[in-house]
């Protein structure tokens, strides 16, 4: 599944300062759908190169990290249970940087 991931607010520093990543992620074996939960563990394993604790806490994002799925707050689509589709755009923004 083709997805576009964008990191902002300083989170890009955790993935070699690259803000936009075009990636291919497939549902786990035996699963039909890809959820945000799957995507997060994929991101952690494949994109985050340092200090993963700045990005995740437990199996979700760290509090203070905003997630938008196709320009929409993921709190509206079920957070970790949000189902992803081909060509979705997922944005992660840290709010924890200076003002």
């Amino acid at each position: 599944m083709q997805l576009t991931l964008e990191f902002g607010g300083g989170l890009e520093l955790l993935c070699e300062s690259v803000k936009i990543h075009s990636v291919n992620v497939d549902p786990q074996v035996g699963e039909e759908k890809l959820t945000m939960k799957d995507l997060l563990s994929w991101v952690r394993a494949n994109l985050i190169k340092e200090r993963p604790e700045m990005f995740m806490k437990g199996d979700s994002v760290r509090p203070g990290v905003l997630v938008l799925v196709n320009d929409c707050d993921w709190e509206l689509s079920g957070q970790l249970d949000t189902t992803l589709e081909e060509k979705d755009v997922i944005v992660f923004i840290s709010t924890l940087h200076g003002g």
Partner: protein
Amino acid sequence: MGEAEVKPKKAGPVQCSICSQRRAALKRPKTLEQICRECFYAVFEEEIHRVVVDNQLFKPGERIAIGASGGKDSTVLAYVLSELNRRHNYGLDLFLLSVDEGITGYRDDSLETVKRNEIQYGLPLKVVSYKDLYGWTMDEIVKMIGLKNNCTFCGVFRRQALDRGAAMLKVDKLATGHNADDIAETVLLNILRGDIARLSRCTSIITGEDGPIPRCKPFKYTYEKEIVIYPYSFLQNLNRIYTYAYFKRLDYFSTECIYSPNAYRGFAREFIKDLERIRPRAILDIIRSGEKFRISTSAKMPEQGTCERCGYISSQKWCKACVLLEGLNRGLPKLGIGRTRGLNNGLECDTKQSNGVKNIQSKQCGTLDF
């Protein structure tokens, strides 16, 4: 809101609870309302307008400096204030005021952001530098004193630099971008260190009315989540209308002062974010708690005089900046550090982490004292 959170298997469209027409794009932390982008700009801006009006933050004809760091809060503040000033005829002359601490790589980049904001919003910019004011850059100070205690310098010098810049601009007031999360965090830190004087001051929306330049915080009740999401949603909209490249999104700079990892403050911040996740109202509740802790009149507050050397407000013979400078200039940089109670107390720095690693965990140092 009575409606429980909808958790569709597929990310289905949720209707905006304000206009009932468009698809909701975010959930407001303050009210849990699910609203669309257009309604969000409207309520976001209107709430700040209400705060400005209800608290009489400005008077017609005033000159107002916006403390501009290039970060998200001050960038959004500059944008929103210039919009509201036009829309509601505040009659204000707005200026951007930035401090150049002289931190290579960090401040150069964020100052570039502020310079772009100057053009984008058409607000005149004034930059005051540590080098000009004090004869020392932050880089030089760190070279002299090492990474320990440098936040004492940052905090004291920045505060005074903003006041001096504001005096040069001849403004009536300084508006800063401190948001609700910042204030909640400061309430918590002041409780943790038993600083009653600052605790009772830090929730005031206007401070320093007896000093040279009063300061105000139009974002006192504005959640950080909304400040961060505002430029995102807003500019994507704008993109459809304008194409000029640099205005792709409200342009802000998002890495930290490399000299200020602030581990202690970072933990307080994280605690607040954890609380917010469980109960978004917690942030406002902490601010309200802070407001209730008004200092009793019997407690003695230090008397304010002026510094014999530079004329800045001070309760001592010399102001803190002059004491620190004297130490630097005489090669005794420890002078003035850690003696005054309530002045940083070493809380602000955890220097072990700060080997020039860009840090995204914490706020700038020196912001504890508004």
